């Protein structure tokens, strides 16, 4: 009886992940976005830990620990400092209005489930039903990157996409090898720092973080 309960827990966490992805899509404030990102990381870590507990894969514990350290604590902290320094706590403008974005998002979720169903029927893992959700949250994060006009939310979208991929890996094959996960984690961290440095440069150059200004860089 224990295993179905754990599987249901994983499903609940997956649903939570999807909910957060939608919340991010509709959220206008940067500070809240960062909090949502931290929550997403926490849900990810929890689901990884449950999978580790139920399957006895010890390396998933490390991976969960890493997720907590990096995605729940370090990166949100770095982003907090960044927006403090840059004074960008203001509301976000979107390219498309939020209800439309949500509708597109629903369409994407349906597409992701349609895509994942044949794959999850073949899979034998405990977490197979969550593959569609993982794919959906990747696509939703991608959508968020497209519709946001400011640089900071785009980076948050990028990080959320990485979360979704990580979740997909855990649910489809019980995670990637630890070495790969370590490498990806390091990449994300370094990427965040580099984005931070770029933010300062972009603002210095254009007095704004609005990426529409980058269009001026195009050669005619």
């Amino acid at each position, binding site marked *: 009886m224990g295993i179905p309960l754990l599987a249901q827990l994983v499903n609940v966490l997956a649903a939570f992940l999807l909910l957060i992805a939608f919340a991010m899509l509709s959220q206008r404030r940067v500070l809240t976005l960062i909090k949502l990102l931290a929550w997403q990381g926490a849900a990810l870590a929890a689901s990884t830990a449950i999978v580790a507990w139920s399957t006895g894969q010890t390396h998933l514990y490390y991976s969960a620990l890493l997720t907590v350290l990096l995605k729940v604590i370090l990166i949100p902290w770095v982003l907090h400092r960044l927006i403090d320094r840059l004074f960008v706590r203001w509301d976000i403008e979107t390219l498309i209005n939020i209800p439309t974005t949500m509708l597109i998002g629903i369409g994407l979720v349906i597409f992701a489930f349609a*895509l994942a169903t044949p794959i999850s029927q073949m899979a034998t893992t405990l977490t197979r039903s969550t593959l569609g959700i993982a794919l959906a949250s990747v696509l939703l994060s991608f959508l968020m990157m497209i519709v946001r006009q400011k640089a900071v939310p785009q980076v948050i979208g990028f990080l959320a996409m990485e979360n979704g991929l990580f979740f997909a890996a855990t649910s489809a094959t019980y995670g990637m090898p630890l070495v790969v996960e370590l490498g990806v984690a390091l990449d994300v961290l370094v990427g965040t720092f580099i984005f931070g440095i770029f933010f300062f440069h972009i603002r210095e150059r254009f007095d704004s973080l609005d990426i529409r200004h*980058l269009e001026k860089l195009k050669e005619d």
Partner: protein
Amino acid sequence: MGVLSSPLAGSLVVAVGWLVVAVLGLVPTNNAFFARRIAFPLGALAGVALAAFGLQAVWLPTQALTLPLGLPDLPFHLRIDPLAGFFLMLLGSVSAGISVYSAGYFREEPSGRLALISLQYHVFLASMAFVLLADDAYLFMVAWETMALSSYFLVITDHRQPAIRSAGFLYLLIAHLGAIAILLCFGVLHGGRGDYTFDALRAAQLQPAWASVAFLLAFFGFGAKAGMLPLHAWLPEAHPAAPSPVSALMSGIMLKTAIYGMVRVIFDLIGNVRWEWGMLVLAVGAATTLFGVLYALMQHDLKRLLAYHSVENIGIILLGLGMSMVFIGFGHPAAGVLALIAALYHTLNHAVFKGLLFLGAGSILHSTGLRNLNDMGGLIRGMPRTAFYFLIGALAISALPPLNGFVSEWLTFQAALQATVIQHGVVRSLLPLFAATLALAGALTAMCFVKVYGIAFLGQPRESAHPSPLPHAGDAGAMERYGMAWLAAGCFVLGLFPTSFLLILNRVGVSLTGQGLSEQALAGSGWLWLVPTAAGQASYSPVIFLVVIAAATLLAFLLVRRFYHGRVRFAAPWDCGYPEQTSRMQDTADAFGQPIRHVFGPIYRMDRRLPGPEDTEPRYSLKVEDRHWYWLYLPVARAAEFVSSKIALLQQGRISIYLLYSFITLIALLVFVR
């Protein structure tokens, strides 16, 4: 002494030796001295050795070798057969003269620049040797591209001038178009089976349609490098831009590697030559010949003029090749081999005399700083030795006996006269027409070199263009003269002893087609007489020609001495009523070409400004342009620009749009793999 007994190993050693010389030139601190005194003379010595190995290879059976180099599982294959041996002989002997000349020509170059020139020069030579030795498509393409790139850097030696940079770009562009076609040709020959060694390509059985595609690709690809119509546009731009020894190398030897490639791929790799292909080659060859010589007549830049003559001579070689293909396609290999021999003989001849002429042009440029014929005049007094060597080259290219140009053009005519063996009526009547084109081109060439020699070397210096009398720097230096003397001697040897070269080329023909010249021809040919078909039909003896010419000259000289001696009186000639005569009244290069410009008017695109009757300062200006620019090159360039501007719409500069591209691609791929 294993190297000396094996021409393949020997040629490999020479090619690697060139590479070593190229790299060594960068090491010494005083590398200008090293390049002039050691690198170029060593390169020349290596060239002589290569010529000897090539000559040896013609008489030996084919040798092959696999090098433990290249990519894993894709080693380099080398092979030397009579055809490669003949072209190696050409490369070695002509480059030897040019290298000696370079040792003197580059005497004023600063150290760093000369080290680079020496590096590119010797890499260029080595890559040409590897093109000739290659026995797989992979090594061939590597060497071919190395050749294109090293010669590109040699062309843009004076890259600070924008005109030279754009000439180099044009050259590189057309060279790459050609290389793509050659690559595709190898792909067609390969046909998805086996590997890319030439043995495998030779063995591949192609459908007739695919064989024709392969032929067209090879013809286009190698033709771009050779400068045939309408891909010739880079030649008159790149040759004047390059330093003169480099022009000599490119025109003399590099164009010939393209001929080698054509013969190798069409006769050897594709095989089963069809006569329709030959007719195409003939038509293009005739057009190239006429176009080249007609435009050469209009030029007043000496090196540009020589470049147009290279176009013309490539046309003559193509005429020979095309005839050979027609004969072989109709099943007359003996006549086909004769035409092939004529084409290859002209290849060697053109390398020697065009090399010599470019070197002579280089010496003039070096001494006077002039390339424009209209500024020259009376150079023979300042630089008599250069004038002498240039005269030999001019006589040779004008196909006057007993020099070498005559022999190969005569052989081409002899091949054309074999047309009676062909059953197809139209083709039989067309062949003599092509031969007539060649005759016309020969006469126009002679006219063009009368113009060059008369305007540049004879007459009076044109002081209006230059305040100081020409030339201010005197005759060519010793090394330059040795280089020119070597090639001038080549003109004589090739002209006076054609039978030995006929036998060499007969070996090449036998190895390619399995058949040689007729028994009667071989029996009739000796040191004195050259008999291409049968003694009853045609024979030629350059030695007797020389003796008769020498005797007639001597006789005339003696008669003049005998009867006119002491009766010479000096008096002012009648001045036609013009009391003041200046050197500006001499014939100019443009004036010399006027009758031809008149007769062949529609061929040129002319922009002429005549002075009006009221002009106080009358000026006459004439610009002759190549029509190909307007109907072919510029439309293609405009189309490319249009397509690029449409594709550039993708670049919006908005990150959201770029992300959307990735997103749509991702969704599409996901849908696709479902």
